């Protein structure tokens, strides 16, 4: 996925929030990233550092909370864990899985000053 655009999206959310909530510096950013969101954590950290240079989040720490991938198996009629988007059901081996969780890409909270 495209970590540079995502990092830019994060900075926009931070800047919007700074305007609304009146803060001038961000020291830590918590992200929730689903296991199936296709986000490379290392690439994300690198891009975040580049994008936030000279901004109010310059030098901020990026904390990533990984959310597990889950899917609904149409054969088993139950929620099963998924580790990849095109994965198979660990119970029955079917590919008829509908992803129900793990595609999140969210800014959860900030530590600001």
């Amino acid at each position, binding site marked *: 996925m495209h970590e540079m655009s*995502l990092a830019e999206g994060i900075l926009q959310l931070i800047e919007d*929030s700074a305007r609304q909530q009146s803060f001038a510096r961000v020291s830590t950013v918590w992200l929730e990233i689903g296991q199936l969101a296709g986000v490379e954590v290392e690439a994300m950290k690198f891009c975040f550092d580049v*994008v936030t240079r000279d901004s109010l989040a310059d030098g901020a720490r990026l904390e990533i909370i990984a959310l597990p991938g889950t899917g609904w198996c149409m054969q088993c009629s139950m929620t099963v864990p998924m580790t990849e988007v*095109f994965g198979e059901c660990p119970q029955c081996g079917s590919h008829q899985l509908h992803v129900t969780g793990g595609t999140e890409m969210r800014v959860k909270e*900030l530590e600001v000053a």
Partner: protein
Amino acid sequence: MCTTCGCGAGEVKIDGEHAHHEHDHVHADGTTHKHDHDHDHDHEHAAAAAHEHPHAHAHPHSYAPAHSHAPGVSTKRMVQIEQDILSKNNAYAAENRQHLVERGIFALNLVSSPGSGKTTLLVKTIEMLEGRQHVAVIEGDQQTSQDAERIRATGAPAIQINTGKGCHLDAHMVGRAMGKLELTEDSLLMIENVGNLVCPAAFDLGEAHKVVILSVTEGEDKPIKYPDMFRAATLMLMNKCDLLPHLTFSVPRAIEFARRVNPAIEVIEVSATTGQGMDAWLAWLECGAAAAAASKLVTVDALKRRIAELEARLPQGS
């Protein structure tokens, strides 16, 4: 987007839009780059941050208010955000979608690798739909307006978006281009995305469906190599099927891989060169366009917006 520093849609150009003013940015590490701005500048600055980029002109800065910054006193606090990273794009996409749905326009986001034959397929499609269906096109490429010119040669209106260093179209660019196209009601809007099987998957443009084009000269395992795109698409067009006799490409295997990622994906085999399969593709398009026109969302609010738009076009004083 500028991949040097991530500084917004720096080099985006849309046909017919005035060149934006440019200015230099100098970063703390000494790197300098140029970019132009949209006309709403709001810059966020840390209150105490050294501010190094020289501006050739004045524009409003929204500073965070100078609240208690007494030395030695920690003012750290937590702020809950709970917002999707792509929420800005998604808000623009929702606006585009509403605009399209209210006018009964069937919009498709065409995605593929570079060289899959998207533009040729589009030209052929427009030629075959002539007199049956009104088509407008938004073309996305990093550079040049060659594709939009190829489309305009068919007589269909087309707008080129050059994304500069950006690798995908976003909903804001498409919204601006839609404004320039003066779309006809109950028509078809084809948005040809930048050739890239990765990034466009994440960016909703407000389309009814994504259509992924896979040419048979590519690997049949592309759907599992680039699953996000094939998962996001409603329809897969297998293009260049006239070349199958010369290749080892297995159509059933490619379909199996695509359905592994997206069990519901529809598949049509086509050849823009020989016209094979084009009837099925045109039928799919006309079916979608008819459904979009039939379910046109005529609400009171929509009518009010239309009246306001038309009134704005009236000459002043009449």
